């Protein structure tokens, strides 16, 4: 690309970016609305954010039928593309954002009396959703970095949202420090990749890698550095250590969206980046070698195995439900990475479908913790004793989420895991599949510790056993998450098709 020949973006292609535009405008209007109306409850930012998310969501759903998706709708020249993958993740992120906004409205941690800047939360969720959507759309190193940092910067602020709480500010500081270092490491890798290939866009990098002689060792170093930065975003071992601390310290609704949104966005980015640059394409003779030069399958298999085993084993001895869910989310990243092993479309489809299911069940589990925290002001497992009889409906929905997280047959989690396992078994990586199966059994133990506490443990003498009444909005959101978790375990065909189409309509430029 010569300096004078730069593809200067104009406004004509912005029509494909209406959801992002709506969210960005919503962010500004919500902030201003919050400043203008200082009420006891931040009604104005809440209404604006719900409205913006619903509007963006309806545009995103309508965009699914756009015939141009398969070829990719470029925005701002080469930087960003709206294709099948982006369209799929757009809807996922808007759904997660909307669910979080609705649930945060009823959360004491966000809406508690002592807080003065309550409205900002809703504005920040909008910005975060928009940034995550761009992460799924980036196809240039510059946009990759900018979108990741945009998500990061919003997350740092949201983790420290309870300014007066020592734990919340501490979580935020740890997040900033580790986040900045890992993105610096990733950037160093990216800068060397730019040096090796002379290109910034993913397709150009691929073309350079396929055509030119590649120094295997240099490429391995670069890929490891880039994986380091990205595995920080998705919280894979050894870049997981921020995860439990931040989830525990941040307000629970924030942990809920952290455990789903940035992780899914990280996976979207990894799928596009590594599939475009490394996977074997139609030019098989030249490209099939790339992932073997650096022994990519073994690298990912080891990260995946260590991540799931570590997450599960440490989750076993947690007594705090929120912290346990944090470690369980690390374990799930391990399962998800299995689909990444050989960068085949089948594996990537399995990842997408599992992310869909994971969003439902993990948000649900975290939201239950939010609802209980409102009443008990605690997330300790010991305080969950007898909850099954104090709030039977919500507790049974929690059982659905936990059973689905475990991967028990009639629930959606099983189907998701089934596809991931098949993707690995197809390529005859038996040891990884066996390890994952063993890990699922370990998961059964700690997930059902919560079920046991809620339903089968007799409360101590004199313990409070009065019924808990949840807000109607909480029941609604939990049901909206629980019903698909059940239904997707029985009728998953259409949603699997959605994931398949998303991968089929991913434009990678080869």
């Amino acid at each position: 690309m010569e300096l004078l020949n730069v593809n200067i973006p104009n406004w004509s292609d912005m029509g494909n970016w209406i959801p992002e535009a709506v969210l960005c405008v919503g962010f500004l209007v919500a902030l201003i609305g919050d400043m203008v109306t200082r009420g006891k409850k931040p009604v104005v930012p809440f209404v604006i954010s719900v409205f913006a998310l619903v509007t963006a969501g309806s545009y995103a759903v309508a965009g699914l039928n756009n015939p141009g998706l398969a070829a990719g709708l470029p925005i701002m020249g080469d930087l960003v593309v709206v294709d099948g993958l982006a369209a799929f993740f757009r809807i996922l992120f808007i759904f997660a954002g909307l669910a979080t906004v609705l649930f945060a409205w009823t959360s004491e941690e966000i809406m508690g009396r002592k807080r003065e800047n309550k409205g900002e939360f809703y504005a920040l969720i909008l910005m975060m959703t928009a940034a995550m959507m761009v992460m799924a759309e980036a196809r240039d190193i510059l946009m990759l970095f900018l979108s990741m940092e945009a998500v990061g910067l919003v997350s740092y602020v949201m983790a420290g949202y309870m300014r007066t709480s020592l734990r919340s500010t501490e979580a935020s500081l740890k997040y900033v420090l580790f986040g900045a270092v890992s993105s610096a490491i990733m950037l160093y890798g990216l800068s060397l990749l730019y040096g090796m290939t002379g290109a910034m866009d993913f397709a150009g990098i691929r073309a350079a890698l396929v055509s030119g002689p590649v120094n295997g060792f240099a490429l391995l170093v670069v890929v490891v550095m880039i994986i380091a930065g990205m595995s920080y975003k998705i919280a894979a071992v050894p870049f997981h250590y921020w995860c439990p601390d931040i989830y525990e310290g941040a307000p629970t609704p924030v942990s809920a969206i952290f455990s789903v949104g940035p992780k899914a966005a990280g996976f979207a980015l990894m799928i596009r980046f590594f599939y475009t640059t490394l996977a074997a394409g139609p030019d098989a003779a030249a490209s099939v070698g790339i992932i073997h030069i650096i022994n990519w399958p073994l690298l990912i298999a080891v990260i995946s195995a260590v991540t799931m085993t570590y997450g599960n084993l440490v989750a076993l001895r947690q007594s705090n439900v929120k912290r346990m869910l944090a470690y369980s989310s690390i374990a799930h990243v391990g399962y998800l990475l299995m689909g990444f092993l050989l960068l085949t479309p089948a594996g990537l489809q399995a990842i997408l479908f599992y992310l869909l299911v994971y969003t439902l069940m993990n948000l649900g589990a975290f939201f239950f913790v939010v609802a209980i925290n409102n009443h008990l002001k605690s997330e300790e497992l010991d305080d969950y004793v007898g909850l099954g009889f104090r709030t039977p409906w919500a507790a049974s929905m929690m059982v659905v989420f936990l059973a689905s997280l475990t991967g028990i047959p009639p629930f959606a989690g099983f189907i998701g895991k089934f596809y991931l396992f098949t993707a690995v078994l197809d390529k005859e990586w038996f040891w990884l599949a066996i390890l994952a199966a063993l890990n699922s059994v370990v998961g059964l133990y700690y997930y059902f510790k919560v079920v046991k506490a809620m339903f089968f443990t007799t409360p101590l003498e004199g313990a409070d056993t009065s019924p808990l009444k949840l807000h109607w909005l909480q029941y609604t959101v939990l049901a909206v998450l629980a019903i698909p978790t059940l239904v997707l375990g029985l009728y998953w065909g259409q949603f699997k098709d959605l994931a398949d189409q998303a991968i089929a309509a991913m434009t990678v430029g080869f």
Partner: protein
Amino acid sequence: MEITLTHYLLLAMVVFLTGMVGFVVRRNAIVMLMCVELMLSSVNIVFAAYSRFHGNADGHVFVLMNFAVAAAEAAIGLAILVEIYRRRRTVNVDDLKALME
């Protein structure tokens, strides 16, 4: 002696490692943030050098964007540090143990 691409890359590596080692060794959160800035600056050197080497402007554009992001990150990091200092009167990360197991 002629300054070549290799010299720039070596300089960048030294700066990057300085930042990395500093981040691991120092316990003062402000110094740790400064070390991160060093690491980001070393990336800028690599991008600028390679941009000149390849003869395209992409790397220069990246450097400019990187400045902005690094500044934003430092601003948020320092804001959080101020909040922590108000409550704890310390910015030493070893004293921040509310979230340890």
